[in-house]
């Protein structure tokens, strides 16, 4: 029993780290522009595809380290372009909701593009690192790597937002865009930068997590859903919340898969989302995140 528990805990923690990383990548864009990128999950999957293409099978350790920044930068570049497109119509529209459509449309296009070029089947990527043992069970290394990656990005983002002027400026935009422009902050450039940073986060995650990721045309939205739930449970905009809520969600998802079957995993996630929004819409660490009634 304790052995099963260990599997659930370790794998849940690893899976949850991916959710937390997604949540943090949501947060950085959301706080600069109020945009919630529906296509974020597809970019995660693109990171996985990048690993599948760039790495031999089984992968070479040195190549892995070389290709990690390459894949990360490719995804970040694509996401920056996506961000540029998303921000385009926001200039003179009376309603500021166009991003819901454009990011969803891009999400559909990426999914469709992968379907056309790669077919409906999932890619597999082998791990460059040897698996490790927890209570006698072999556990794929990426679960641990994702956890490390989550901590690393968390610390970097914390430093960035609090210490650097650029990070502060990004926060300022989220608080009052007009005042930010009046103060001379180059809003569009900073928002684009936020998209790039979110691309770095999500691209590195996709690459590192590739061996345990479901890399297929239609899995993007599943990750968006879980990343969003981690962000909401933690409190929209709070990275501290994200690194706590993500692993929590990962463990619950693992328990659900184990107890009631994989086909109910999304259902359980939805249930958690609804419960949190009903009873604590601001999340665990959010101040005024969800627009409450």
């Amino acid at each position: 029993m304790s052995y099963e528990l260990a599997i659930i805990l370790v794998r849940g923690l690893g899976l949850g780290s991916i959710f937390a990383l997604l949540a943090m990548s949501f947060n950085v864009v959301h706080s600069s522009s109020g945009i919630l990128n529906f296509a974020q999950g597809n970019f995660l999957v693109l990171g996985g595809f990048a690993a599948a293409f760039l790495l031999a099978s089984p992968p070479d350790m040195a190549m892995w380290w070389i290709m990690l920044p390459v894949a990360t930068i490719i995804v970040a570049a694509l996401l920056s372009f996506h961000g540029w497109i998303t921000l385009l119509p926001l200039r003179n529209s009376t309603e500021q909701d166009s991003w819901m459509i454009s990011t969803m449309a891009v999400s559909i296009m990426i999914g469709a593009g992968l379907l056309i070029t790669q077919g409906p089947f999932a890619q597999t990527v082998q791990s460059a690192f040897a698996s490790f043992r927890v209570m006698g069970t072999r556990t794929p290394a990426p679960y641990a790597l994702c956890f490390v990656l989550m901590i690393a990005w968390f610390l970097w983002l914390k430093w960035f937002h609090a210490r650097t002027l650029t990070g502060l400026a990004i926060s300022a935009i989220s608080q009052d865009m007009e005042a930010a422009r009046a103060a001379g902050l180059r809003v569009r450039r900073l928002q684009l930068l936020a998209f790039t940073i979110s691309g770095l986060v999500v691209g590195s995650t996709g690459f590192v997590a590739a061996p345990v990721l479901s890399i297929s045309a239609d899995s993007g939205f599943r990750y968006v859903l879980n990343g969003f739930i981690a962000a909401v449970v933690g409190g929209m905009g709070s990275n501290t919340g994200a690194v706590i809520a993500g692993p929590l969600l990962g463990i619950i998802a693992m328990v659900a898969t184990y107890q009631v079957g994989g086909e109910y995993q999304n259902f359980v996630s939805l249930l958690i989302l609804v419960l949190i929004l009903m009873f604590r819409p601001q999340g665990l660490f959010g101040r005024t995140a969800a627009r409450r009634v």
Partner: protein
Amino acid sequence: MLEVRNLHAGYGRMPVLRDVSFSLKPGEILLIGGENGAGKSTLMRTIGGFITPTSGSITLDGKSLIGEAPEDIVRLGLRLVLDGHRIFPEMSVYDNIRLGAVMRGKERGSFEAAVKAIFEVFPILEEKRRDYARDLSGGQQQMLALAQAFVAQPKVLLCDEPSMGLAQLLMPTIMNFLKVWAESGTAVVIVEQHLDAALTVSHRAIIMERGQVTIECPAGDLQNRLAQRVSA
């Protein structure tokens, strides 16, 4: 320094500003008064780059500002302080001031001098430098908004309704600050409906009505000019 010539601007086909002209010298304080809806805020936002004029010219030291984005206009040396003390509520007072100097790059020394000067005028800001700006009162937020503009050291400062939502008690402090600021060579425009407090520090005054300038005179003459109109 700032030259506004035959400015027309509005929303869609609806004109708000009709043929507005004025100019501003270094160190001068200009009061722009007028009824609500007269176009004062529209004028400020047009000069600040938030609204594109339909015709006319705006130049700063001979360089046209038309078509420039608000953030680039700040870099050219014109700073607009929006009405309603708009600061960044979810960060500290000090970080708010820091962001004010963002586009000045690496002139570390002058920034620190500016901050020191600001803290001397508004000691409450130094006292609360680590507090969230949202926890300040309306008046303190207005001080912070001015502080944020001050550290940018603009050549021209536009101040839209600094008294809005403020206790009358605070007005002299704010007006005196603007006066001292102008003495250092900065040209200042104050948009106000409460003329009295602002008149004491202004050099010249403009009254706008229905998008046009109807009175332009030395500040000292304004009350007489207004009184004449009432009796006429």
